[in-house]
């Protein structure tokens, strides 16, 4: 009961602030311009894992483009113009140089679609100190904790949020005994850490843990490899950590015992999915496809939200000033519509976007976390990932 009251109080406070900010617009004066940079680097085409999914080289960009269009549609009524400038560094180029030389002082807002290790090298540059960076690619927990930066906001759910979302669903299904299967990469080990943390938080039990050491060209041998590999003590569900998809797809239907597969394959936790159609998302799926000619990927969704966050803050504050917009984005008043039911907002303690996490099978949306019944005194969305008390981010200093 207490939690309901608190959340109601929070709601009322939030609505009150929104109400104070209600403004009418009869636009006549000169335009404010908001410059946003989009920084990414070309990627090497990885060796194909499967013939089904073609490599998409422009993940992210179309999301930023669509959000800029949306911002400008709103801007025509509020006298604000949003300009998106793309900086695509070639494969052999240097992103630091591009940031220092090309992005310069003109762009206070930078959407960064780069691998995890590049984010902080950019954030720590003197030229980035007075900017606000939007990380639309990383899912690392450490970037939201010890390695957090005051000038970086993170749009995608981190590994801990994903693992918690999966754990909530498994708890609901009473799949309490997990068989954890981990790939050989560092990323797989990090996701396994997040899954162990989630198991502990939600009282689940990892009854067996194994690293995949068989071949990755499992097309030939999966039937026998997986059957042998999965002869372990009884478990309810196989939880797999294979972020690159090197072997995870071969587990389903081939395990010794008939058990569901969940994690990075089978039922996955994701910020966005093509099967998602609730809360008006059919509209953005359609609008995106019309523009990009393909489905919206996670990075597109993240880049969309990043640019929309700037737009929403600029509309409500009627300002273009980076500190003002940042303060607004981190305040209780900020509410971003992300086509996932609950309004989205940033966690003030680590800059992570709090958001529902979709649990999706390849052709069906299975659930949306937080799963009903997981309560939180402030917002149920904070049952996913690092809550304020658990965070080791000290970015306010």
């Amino acid at each position, binding site marked *: 009961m207490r939690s309901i009251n608190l*959340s*109601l109080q929070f*709601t*009322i406070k939030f*609505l009150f602030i*929104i*109400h104070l*900010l*209600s*403004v*009418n*617009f*009869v*636009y006549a004066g000169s335009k404010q311009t908001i410059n946003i940079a989009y920084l990414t680097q070309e990627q090497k085409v990885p060796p194909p894992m499967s013939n089904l999914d073609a490599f998409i080289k422009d993940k992210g960009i179309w999301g930023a483009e669509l959000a800029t269009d*949306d911002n400008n*549609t*709103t801007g*025509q*009524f*509020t006298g604000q113009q949003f300009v998106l400038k793309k900086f695509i560094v070639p494969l052999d180029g240097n992103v630091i140089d591009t940031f220092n030389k090309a992005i310069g002082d003109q762009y206070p807002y930078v959407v960064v679609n780069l691998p995890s290790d590049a984010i902080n090298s950019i954030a720590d540059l003197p030229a980035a100190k007075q900017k606000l960076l939007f990380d639309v690619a990383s899912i690392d927990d450490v970037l939201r904790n010890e390695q957090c930066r005051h000038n970086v906001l993170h749009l995608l759910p981190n590994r801990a949020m994903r693992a918690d979302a999966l754990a909530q669903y498994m708890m609901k299904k009473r799949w309490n005994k997990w068989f954890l299967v981990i790939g050989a990469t560092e990323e797989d080990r990090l996701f396994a850490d997040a899954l162990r943390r989630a198991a502990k938080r939600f009282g689940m039990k990892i009854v067996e843990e194994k690293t995949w050491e068989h071949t990755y060209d499992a097309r030939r041998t999966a039937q026998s490899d997986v059957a042998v590999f999965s002869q372990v003590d009884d478990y309810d569900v196989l939880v797999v950590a294979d972020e690159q998809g090197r072997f995870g797809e071969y587990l389903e239907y081939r395990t010794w015992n008939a058990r569901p597969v969940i994690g990075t394959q089978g039922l996955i936790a994701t910020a966005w999915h093509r099967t998602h159609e609730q*809360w*008006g998302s059919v*509209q953005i799926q*359609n*609008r995106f496809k*019309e523009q990009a000619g393909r489905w919206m990927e996670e990075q597109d969704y993240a880049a969309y939200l990043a640019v929309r966050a700037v737009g*929403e803050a600029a*509309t*409500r504050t009627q300002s273009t000033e980076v500190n003002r917009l940042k303060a607004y984005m981190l305040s209780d008043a900020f*509410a971003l*519509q992300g086509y996932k*039911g*609950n*309004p989205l907002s940033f966690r003030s303690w680590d800059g992570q976007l709090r958001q*529902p996490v979709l649990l999706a099978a390849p052709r069906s949306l299975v659930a949306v976390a937080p799963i*009903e019944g997981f309560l939180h005194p402030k917002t*149920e969305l904070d049952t996913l990932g690092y809550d304020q008390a658990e965070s080791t981010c000290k970015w306010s200093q």
Partner: protein
Amino acid sequence: MRNTFVSGNAYGTDLSRPLAQWATKVAPTAVFAILSMAFVANAQAETLFVTLEKDNALAVVDPIAGKLIKTVGIGQRPRGIVISPDNKFLYVATSDDNTIQIIDAETLKVVGQLPSGDDPETFAINAAGDRLYVSNEDDSLVTVIDIADKKVVKQIKVGVEPEGITASPDNRWVVSASETTNMVHWIDPKTNTIVENTLVDPRPRSLGFTADSQQLWVTSEMAGTLMVLDVNTKQIIKTIPFDVQGVTRDKIQPVGVVIDKDSKRGYVALGPANRVAVINAQTFEVESYLLVGQRVWNLAFSPDQKRLYTTNGTSNDISIIDLDSQKVTKSVGVGNYPWGVAVKP
């Protein structure tokens, strides 16, 4: 027993509830009263037309008898529906055909089509009955159609994902709400231009004027609120949050809104919360939440305003609310995904 039924919350997830259960749970006296009314009240019999989004059909319902009379095939994915002020024609947006069908309200034959722009969903008719205003959600446009000429008069650029639209009874305003821009746009129907914009709570969904055209009520799907705007200042004068015990906040998604002609009470459909909120239109207090079918979307009064009809998207029925007793008296199965409802006296 009836009380538990109305305020219970376990019912919310039961998809397979057969119609018969309603009848046994609603007090038998109420059923009897309705049935007997059917015999005496034929003279004032009214007809409901309900669009069935997934059946590509129109359901015709006798609400007094509480019966589905027939189902008539219509274009692809019918959603928005309005009846002309003279009650002679129905206009139905068949979204996947990208048109608005004109249907003779007596014969139920399609007698013409209106050029609606792409993917029409929601639209409004003005009080004079000569203009339709259509939201084109994917193109951020409002299309103005001259009904007699069957021609587009103008396309007005509005915010991103326009959805709710309504015309004021005094013919002075057409208001369009854009869901992603979070604004309501005030359009002057004389010039077909936007003259003012009001920033509102996230994902404004549906709009309704009071009968005196002095207030505009706006629902916000994402904040779970109802906002009351003063038409003269175009400012929000009251924001009303909804809080249904036992229902999580993300399920409270206010959609359709109507206000009775005396401005005594307003009603808001709360979507997957499966409730209709009853609001005192004078004090703006929420008086009660009435349990109806699942994913309640749109609302319409009976001509005498003694009843309220709701379309319930996922339980495939309509609910009938008796407004004197403020009780849900009946549900009528109509077909798959009932979306909009229009009433012919």
